[in-house]
């Protein structure tokens, strides 16, 4: 049990009459590489939003490191080691790459309440932002505004911001979505290189990526868990093949 860093029990969500999450039981082990797949509209992003707290659950519970965080606001879950990226970039588009990272790092290191020193005066905060630039090979773009960058590089900034929060659990919502195929390897290499102690849940449509990356796969359909298991089990699962793989829906 102590090895489970994230868990949901009976997570249920409706939008009016529409049920988007049906009693989802899910757990993520420390250092896991877990993929969440399913056809469009299966409720994958909704599930991530429920875990992160961007959406309140109708009922059910979310546990982070054994603590029930269902009633905690999104920002407080972040403080407990949960970070996410977005399917569609949500960056500070008018600010430079460096400033984007600075915001996340200074928030994480508790510097962002400070009014007595100018931004950039704390060497530890700056050093960490610089390390992230280096890790994700964004150093040459540090001074550019995010809006100036090609989409693929903006996706790297998404991941860099999440890493700035030093998460124990990282939720990646289609990290390579919208990235030209020629550039996607940069992104996938970056994901491969993420620290092993972070538990990662990744939503991904590209099955090559899923099988290269994941040690466990959960399949969602109509807001419910259809199957859960090792990649080879999922490939041979008849139900999964019927609703998902068999349709050739590689999104």
């Amino acid at each position, binding site marked *: 049990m102590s090895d489970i860093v994230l868990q949901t029990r009976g997570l249920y969500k409706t939008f009016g009459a529409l049920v988007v999450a049906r009693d989802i039981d899910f757990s993520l082990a420390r250092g896991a590489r877990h993929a969440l797949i399913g056809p469009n509209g299966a409720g994958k992003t909704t599930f991530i939003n429920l875990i992160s707290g*961007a959406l309140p659950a109708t009922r059910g519970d979310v546990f982070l490191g054994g603590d029930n965080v269902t009633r905690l606001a999104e920002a407080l879950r972040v403080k407990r080691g949960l970070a996410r990226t977005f399917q569609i970039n949500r960056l500070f588009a008018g600010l430079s790459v460096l400033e984007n990272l600075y915001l996340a790092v200074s*928030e*994480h290191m508790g510097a962002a309440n400070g009014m007595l020193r100018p*931004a950039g005066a704390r060497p530890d905060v700056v050093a960490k932002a610089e390390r992230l630039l280096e890790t994700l090979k964004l150093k040459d773009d540090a001074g550019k505004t995010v809006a100036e960058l090609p989409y693929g590089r903006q996706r790297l900034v998404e991941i860099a911001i999440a890493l700035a929060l030093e998460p124990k659990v990282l939720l990646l919502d289609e990290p390579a979505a919208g990235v030209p195929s020629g550039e996607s390897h940069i992104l996938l290499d970056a994901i491969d290189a993420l620290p092993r102690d972070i538990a990662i849940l990744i939503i991904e449509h590209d099955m090559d990526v899923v099988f290269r990356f994941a040690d466990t796969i959960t399949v969602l359909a109509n807001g419910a868990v259809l199957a859960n298991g090792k990649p080879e089990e999922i490939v041979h699962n008849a139900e999964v093949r019927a609703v998902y793989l068999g349709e050739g829906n590689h999104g």
Partner: protein
Amino acid sequence: MAAPAQGLAARSLLSHHRFRWVEAIPWVIAIAVFFAFPGYRLLATQILVLILFAISLDLIVGYAGIVSLGHTAYFGTGAYTAALLASNGWTEPLSGLVLALVLGALFGLVTGWVVLRTHGLTLLMLTMAATIMLYELAKDLDFITGGFDGINFENDPILGVLPFDVVWYSSNYWYALFFLFAFFCLARFIVHSPFGRALIGIRENVERMHAIGSPVKRRKLTIYVISAGIAGVAGAIWVQIQGNITPAVYEFELAADVLIMIILGGTGRLYGAFLGVVAFKILENVTETVLGTDEPYWMLAIGLALVFTVLFAPRGLLGIFEDIIKTVNRRAR
């Protein structure tokens, strides 16, 4: 204060904070105006106070993305604090300012706690309604406020030596300029601090701020309270330099004008307040002088200027200046 060997990243982050010589221009002009236009000193003094008021509004509109149509609620509260204090026997002006700051901020805390739960149109309507109610209240409570006619009052000399001068406005001008400078420096320090950068993050993408663990509500309330306090100081100086107060300090039109001023000048850069207030006041005065005051032609002029700004210069007059300087620099190279 900074690390001895600053890297590129630190220098780039600190660059906003660093003083540039262009920034001396408005202050040099402010000093020059005192000597060059003695006949316009009342107007010039009012402009200084309005700039301070506009800066307080820019802190929430331009930095945290909180658009308010009722910032006179705090301006007026500060004004009444100073005026009632003086008219009831406490005639020392600086303590009046301090109390105006405190009460403005406190009122900002109480009202901000409620209104900041909303945003967009609801927030606009709530802030507007609040200041309109205060205006009516100030008019009706005539046994305290003197009603529509207001109150005349007199303050002691500043620091016991420099009397307020309601004929030539000389001491009043320096009084206003001093506090404008002091609070401008404070505002400048805040917006370039880590807290100020986090506010910009809220303005740019509030959802992402939640997702990086930022206590967005608390940050917004903090800057709202600071802004309300500064607006209170502006209100106090406004009435102290004129020696009287009427409910007009709560007027919705003033709140709307100040919002227009910072949009004209350019929001989110503090100096936009200087340009916007000056442009607004000059436009108002010139139109009235040329076309007369029989019809509200100046409103038409301001309206056209606003439409032009929103359509063609969304970064305001300051944005136009920045573009000109950039083009000149590029040509020079």
